């Protein structure tokens, strides 16, 4: 992948990531997150991870981000004042972030990764090869993820579904909101 393509795309990706963090309106930050996901998908293609790129767009950008947008609109959140109120917190945050990024980049720049010249098999990154691996070496992991998803769904249902344990619903069964108030 030629530098001409990499750098502008990288720039867009980073800009949209910053957009997620800086924009005041949650919807705009959600959309900028979607933008950065797309850039990543493009990178995946360049890295010959075709199926992963497709999954990224369908699963991630499609399903997960939609869920986010759905929740944001459901709670009709108005924009808050962004980074304005806590300058100290933001300053320290950015400082620490810079250190982390700097440290990682410094470490990575000194690794011997560059020296690995590996010619990839043409079928690298295709669905067939990935599938054979998923159901071969990673069969156990694959089955376990199914259980993970089941737990997530059950959990989501338990928490999100309205089932009468709030004051609004049934008065008698409701628990006084601040019953076990720990008065400190």
């Amino acid at each position: 992948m030629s530098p001409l393509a990499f750098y502008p795309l990288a720039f867009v990706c980073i800009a949209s990531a910053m957009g997620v963090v800086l924009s005041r309106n949650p919807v705009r930050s959600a959309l900028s997150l979607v933008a950065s996901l797309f850039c990543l998908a493009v990178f995946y293609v360049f890295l010959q991870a075709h199926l992963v790129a497709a999954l990224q767009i369908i699963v991630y950008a499609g399903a997960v981000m939609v869920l986010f947008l759905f929740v944001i609109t459901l709670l009709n959140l108005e924009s808050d004042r962004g980074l304005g109120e806590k300058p100290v917190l933001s300053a320290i945050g950015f400082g620490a972030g810079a250190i982390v990024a700097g440290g990682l980049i410094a470490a990575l720049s000194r690794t011997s990764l560059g020296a690995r010249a590996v010619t990839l098999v043409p079928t690298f990154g295709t669905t067939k090869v990935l599938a054979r691996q998923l159901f071969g070496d990673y069969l156990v992991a694959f089955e376990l993820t199914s259980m993970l998803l089941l737990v997530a769904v059950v959990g989501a249902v338990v928490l999100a579904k309205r089932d009468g344990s709030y004051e609004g619903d049934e008065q008698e069964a409701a628990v006084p909101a601040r019953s076990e108030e720990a008065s400190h």
Partner: protein
Amino acid sequence: MTQAINSGLPLIVACSWALLLIVVEMFSGDRRFVGVAWMGVIGLAVTAAMSVHYASVPAVYGNALALDGYAVYFNLLACTLGAAAMLLSIDYLGDAGIVRGEYYSLMFFAVIGVVIMAAATDLIVMFIGLETMSMAVYVLAGIRKSDLRSNEAALKYFLLGALASALLLYGVALLYTITGSTVLADVSKALSDTQHAGADHLVLLLATGLVLIGFGFKIAAVPFHLWAPDVYEGAPTTVTAFMATAVKAGGFAALMRTVLVALAPMRAELAPVLWGAAAVTMTLGNVVALRQTSLKRMLAYSSIAHTGYLLVGVTAGTNEAGSSVLFYLAAYGAMNIGAFGVMAALARRGRGCEKISDFSGLAQTHPAMACAMALFMLSLTGIPPLGGFVGKLYVFTAAMHAGLVWLVVIAALNSVVSAAYYLGVVRTMYFDNAPADVLPPARPYAAVVVAVAAVVTILLGVAPSPVLGSAARAFSKVLLG
């Protein structure tokens, strides 16, 4: 092939039992879900029994899971602690306004998560196990939806958990990029090869650092401990009991396997970090616990302190130190389940039982409960001849043997500080006199669990050899070479 199947049976049975639980829950009518609870407990018992039965044949799944002695030990530990937590919850939930049957299935899934973490020999499988457990416990923490503190606990636990998982994952990613594999044994072999020494040394250091931080969060080591007090205090007491014992054990299972197997070659650089973490965690946990007025929050900080003591064992890193951590986890589990059990037994809607002052004069109103609580407090302090003392003794001996003399002295002095607040509780129960509105009588199920916990604590102190032996056997085959 059949041999692989039937030795994997415990895990398969466990998962199917959990699914069965959800189905049964749908059809159970009464609001207290006693049936589901007992199903859960029996399920755990079956899993434990089968894993012991099949323990003789260590099954290795490709290189994802290894149901070896180590995994079986944790399996047993997690199942017993999970069952205890479920029994505690039977009559606690109804009163606490939790009308969700899924409580037990989620707890069951959490136990399965712990088992996977203990058995995993591949970082990714371990990660998935970690996430399964975490998902279940995030929901359990927030299960009392009407109570703000429970919601807040769930949110904090979720956010920080997600952050920690991201950190852990990034560490694994770097490790994968450099060493080419995520299987613990391969990673360890790759790390020990000389060619990685030079240039990649720094990246490897950072990667191991990030992985350590990921697990550090799970066992609530300082400075990644801030979530623990709030979540322990916010979550329902029985969930806190489960978290403080089984979840922490899972965290340590994964941490130990990773640090002592995969990252073994890096241990030279890691030792000072671990040493520092152990010392600071112990001291902070004990010192802040001194200042607490809520018993739940105090027990949270006390569990942080005990993480510090356990880290001493991990820092030592020898075979003996590993088994001492295993034994300590068992003793610590029994003590804590008991302590939280007493709180659960006496809590009623509208009359919380979380502040230490609620326990004043307990010796006069509930002599049995007070005696059990005193026993747990003494054992947590490390007063002989209880389980806590033998646990500490074993860890200190191992650490001393590995040359960490000063760390042991710091731990010894920490025990003195811990005596101040643990015996502060005993003082409140025995010295002060009971308030006007006396605490209600203890609940039957909870009382049974507390009694069993008390007996186990005493047995671990007086006749610990069987457990000591199994801990040593369990850890004997974990270290490579």
